[in-house]
């Protein structure tokens, strides 16, 4: 009983696992968005939170410490670039206020101060660290803000700001005063302090921007606050996330904020935040911003974001397999509807993509866009998306004329690879060498392209899908095995990316594809690219060989299957630690020739089991036997039928032809996307047609009427299986009627299992 409960529990958990895969781990949102246009190409890595495909859910973060970076940059300039940034960072942020400075005895800035230089600056840094300490609260509220000492510090900051001779220290002490006033909730005073200590300085320092941020948060006028925060958003990166998250979204509020703006630049800053918050089509907003402030860095980032959106709408579902339930095999009847909407939306997206491309050209013509390399690279990529080779290459060439960033260079290399594969795919040595060279060149931009490992993985995925669409399983699998870096897609394997190629072949390849795959693998004169692609697969060679043989078994070519199985060392079938995904010993533990009515797993005969070659050998022997020896012919036909039946979804030995089994297949919750027989090369797995054929031969050959009836009953199992996946209930009911008609005396008795052994034993008279 406990065992049954455990099985039920595990089944429950397996379905729960599917649920949790979707709920907790199922990749969604920005985590699965497919992107080959590097999100940081607008040079806004520090704004990765507004990137459309930030991959935030997969743990990829970028630009988290911008406040410190901006501050360190200012100090670096202050010390005439003589003290390395890292040493400044170490002293200012690396050592907490409460720890003594001697810990930094080898730090250059520490030594600089120790030698008596810049004593006022030293004092300021010490003071700033103290303020940070006073205001600090820990996660669990074990240390609260020190209010009393903060009040004292506020007075000190004001006094020192007023007294400081250097403007930078005036500003910085003033800033500390604002921060303290803000956290002490002395907002009115804070506003006055800003007007007295900060505003008159007219500083362009980031500290002035940070001061404006605190000032804006202390004033009463809400629309004015948003106007000022938009200015901060435009000129500093460290406070942007905070501003972005809280910025209002309603049009009514937008108009009121715009009415407060005092220049086009300010309006552009406000509009850009609204545009960043738009998950839909935003080209009109980009146009509007470009028209009033073409110099805004924000439009660069917005353009990249727009392309990333279109990539998502265009590619994500098609490349990753996530996001759609469009599957003609799901049996739900919704397929046609989903397909219709998908096609309509794709048309709409394509139309929009063309419009964005036109508008981008227009903006470039009408405005003095500073980053021409970026805008032309964008046009090249949109041309690529629209399958327009001429436009792609034209804009690649134009973009190269401008001095772009390293990221733009890397992006152009990427477009060249993608274009090569899309437009010039001839798998000859010249093509391969060119492709390998370009792949290696992209690797030089590891530090520049956003989330590079994933980016590179998606290039490989793009190439793999191109060949999959072309029906070239070999290349599709080889490039699929290169997909890495957290790219979530249909064949993604957490443990071994090399296994992804296996999964792709398992789902799509026929024996002829596997022949070709191994022909390439065993070729002693591989090209450099072929060697590169096959090299990583060596450890999984027997697993792939097993699949090769299994494609023949699926196609019922037993002799060829056996020939290949026999090349695999016997030890492989005996492995129990699941090395290289070898589950044979565990899964092939039931007698595949067992006769049974039940379709559940509980009646398995574990007294006999086979390895794959042994099983196929025995099946071949039985097939010869029925042809050459009339003795026990009906029984042997039945055994052959059993072997085929047990290889089906309902059989006790499904692992002979499949590598995964899910309780969710068939019926109401059918999800055939997860079934690994999509190409139809293992159709028998869900139809049981071969088993039915042999059960029928057993029925017809039998000389005993009761055994014939028994074999007819066995055919009913196959009908049941097929009804689950394909034909539906009608065929099952019809077969039941035939059964009653053909074997009226035995029909009732053979439905249950009570008389199973009685009828089974009749094989001796058959």
């Amino acid at each position, binding site marked *: 009983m406990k065992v049954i*409960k*455990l099985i039920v*529990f595990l089944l*429950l*958990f397996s379905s*729960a696992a599917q*649920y949790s895969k*979707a*709920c907790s781990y*199922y990749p*969604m*949102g920005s985590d699965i968005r497919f992107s080959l246009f590097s999100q940081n190409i607008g040079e806004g890595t520090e704004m990765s939170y507004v990137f459309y495909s930030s991959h935030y859910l997969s743990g990829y*973060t970028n630009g988290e410490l911008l406040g410190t970076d901006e501050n360190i940059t200012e100090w670096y300039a202050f010390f005439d670039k003589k003290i390395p940034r890292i040493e400044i960072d170490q002293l200012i942020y690396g050592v907490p206020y409460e720890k003594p400075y001697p810990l930094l005895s080898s730090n250059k800035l520490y030594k600089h101060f120790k030698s008596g230089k810049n004593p006022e600056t030293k004092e300021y840094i010490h003071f700033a660290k103290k303020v940070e300490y006073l205001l600090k609260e820990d*996660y*669990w*509220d*074990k240390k609260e803000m020190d209010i009393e000492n903060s009040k004292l510090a506020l007075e000190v900051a004001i006094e020192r700001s007023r007294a400081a001779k250097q403007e930078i220290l005036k500003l910085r002490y003033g800033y500390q005063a604002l921060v303290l006033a803000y956290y002490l909730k002395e907002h009115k005073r804070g506003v006055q302090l800003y007007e007295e200590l900060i505003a008159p300085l007219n500083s362009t320092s980031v500290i002035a921007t940070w001061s404006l941020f605190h000032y804006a948060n202390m004033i009463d006028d809400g629309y004015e606050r948003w106007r000022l925060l938009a200015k901060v958003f435009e000129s500093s990166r460290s406070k942007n996330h905070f501003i972005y998250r809280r910025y209002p*979204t309603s049009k009514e509020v937008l108009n009121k904020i715009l009415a407060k703006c005092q220049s086009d630049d300010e309006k552009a800053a406000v509009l850009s935040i609204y545009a960043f*918050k*738009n*998950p*839909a*089509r935003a080209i009109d907003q980009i146009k509007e911003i470009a028209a009033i402030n073409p110099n805004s860095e924000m439009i660069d980032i917005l353009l990249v974001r727009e392309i990333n959106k279109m990539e998502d709408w265009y590619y994500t*579902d098609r490349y990753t397999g*996530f*996001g*759609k*339930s*469009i599957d003609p095999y799901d049996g*739900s009847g*919704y397929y046609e*509807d*989903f397909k*219709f*909407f*998908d096609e*309509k*939306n794709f048309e*709409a997206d394509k139309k929009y993509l063309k419009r964005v491309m036109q508008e981008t050209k227009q903006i470039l013509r009408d405005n003095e866009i500073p980053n021409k390399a970026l805008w032309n690279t964008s046009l090249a990529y949109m041309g690529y998306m629209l399958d327009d080779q001429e436009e792609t290459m034209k804009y690649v060439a134009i973009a190269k004329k401008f001095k772009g960033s390293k990221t733009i260079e890397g992006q152009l290399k990427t477009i060249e690879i993608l274009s090569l594969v899309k437009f010039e795919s001839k798998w000859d040595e010249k093509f391969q060498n060119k492709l390998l060279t370009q792949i290696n060149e992209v690797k030089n931009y590891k530090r520049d392209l956003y989330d590079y490992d994933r980016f590179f993985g998606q290039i490989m995925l793009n190439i793999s899908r191109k060949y999959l669409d072309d029906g070239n399983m070999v290349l599709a699998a080889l490039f699929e095995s290169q997909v890495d870096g957290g790219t979530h897609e249909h064949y993604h394997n957490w443990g071994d990316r090399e296994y992804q190629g296996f999964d792709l072949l398992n789902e799509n390849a026929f024996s002829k594809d596997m022949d070709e795959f191994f022909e390439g693998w065993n070729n002693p004169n591989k090209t450099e690219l072929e060697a590169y692609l096959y090299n990583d697969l060596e450890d999984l060679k027997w697993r792939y060989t097993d699949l090769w043989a299994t494609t023949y078994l699926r196609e019922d070519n037993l002799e060829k299957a056996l020939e290949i199985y026999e090349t695999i060392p016997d030890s492989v079938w005996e492995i129990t630690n699941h090395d290289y995904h070898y589950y044979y010993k565990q899964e092939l533990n039931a007698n595949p020739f067992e006769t049974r009515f039940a379709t559940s797993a509980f009646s398995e005969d574990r007294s006999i089991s086979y390895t794959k070659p042994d099983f196929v050998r025995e099946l071949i022997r039985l097939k010869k036997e029925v042809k050459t020896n009339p003795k026990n012919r009906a029984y042997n036909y039945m055994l052959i039928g059993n072997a085929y039946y047990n290889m089906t979804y309902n059989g006790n030995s499904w692992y002979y032809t499949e590598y995964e089994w899910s309780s969710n297949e068939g019926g*109401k*919750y059918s999800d055939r996307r997860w079934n690994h027989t999509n190409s139809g090369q293992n159709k028998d797995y869900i139809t049981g047609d071969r088993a039915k054929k042999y059960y029928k031969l057993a029925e017809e050959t039998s000389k005993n009427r009761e055994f014939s009836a028994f074999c007819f009953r066995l055919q009913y199992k196959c009908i049941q299986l097929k009804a689950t996946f394909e034909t539906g209930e009608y065929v099952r009911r019809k077969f039941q009627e035939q059964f009653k008609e053909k074997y009226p005396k035995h029909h009732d008795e053979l439905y249950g299992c009570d008389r199973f052994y009685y009828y089974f034993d009749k094989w001796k008279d058959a």
Partner: protein
Amino acid sequence: MKFWQYISFFSFVFLAVLMTSCEVESVKKSVYHWETDFNLNADEEAFLVKEEISTIYTKFFDVTLNANMEAIPVAKVNFVTAPQQEIVPVVYIVTDVFKALDSVAIKKLATNIYEQLVQLNPQDKFSEIQVDCDWMASIADRYFYFLTELKSLMGETELSCTIRLYQYKYPDLTGVPPVDKGALMYYNMGEILSYSETNSILNNEIGEQYLGFGEYPLPLDFALPNFSWSLLYRYGEFQQIMPNISEAMLADSSLFTLKENQYYMVKKDTLIQNVFLRYGDEIRYENCEESELIYAAELLSHEKNQNHTNLLFYDLKPNLVNESDKIDRVFAAF
């Protein structure tokens, strides 16, 4: 013994039995409060008084992992209004916390949580603390160790934890948490991701499968839902929850059309509540029908295993407040 003495004795026994059986019937109504701001308006206050709800199970904070794999509290409750009812703090802990922490860190977490609860508590003391964590067999040991450590800090205060339906049905496989009592969560039982699901919040067809398997080894309270949400599907694939799309909004025929399968289909690309809805997208509106809630209450009434049971409603939001009569009828069915 004389006759009248027999009469007196049996009368006493009868009365004692009667008094004992009266005690069995005690059921209390409570609610969950799951918002970060505890800011009850007059309607909510009036609802609590009318329904004689004296206890509010209030989520104080969530515990999650930061980038350094430290357990930290997030979304701490902010008591804007002073609660007039007894507050039972609830802490939601994501399961990853117990996957990541070792025993030393777990012990520290128990202390941190307890001290934080005391610090945030707007009242003098707690009579109960509740922990909400969807534990599974693989982390049961760590989670139970945490509960034991937390309990050791709490003195007389009762420790309770939430129990999901599968934990309830398979106590021998998921373990029984070392707490004073459990709260069986009878909601969120369906498959939110499944296009063929009819109601992922409350589906008695599914819920029934987890009940009636014998007495759970802990005294139990029960929690029922009364909330609604909309779920967005694209080509049959779940996209996201849209909590603020109401049925009334879906009635806008310029944007949506109600299909035979009860999905609202989006008629044109549109931006709504900052979500880009595409042509053909479908929205499934889910709520808790009174008849289903009453049936659920009846089902759960057979699972009662203590004298003083709490029936908790999730959660204290406007639709609960406006459905006082419905709540009364559900409560009566329990």
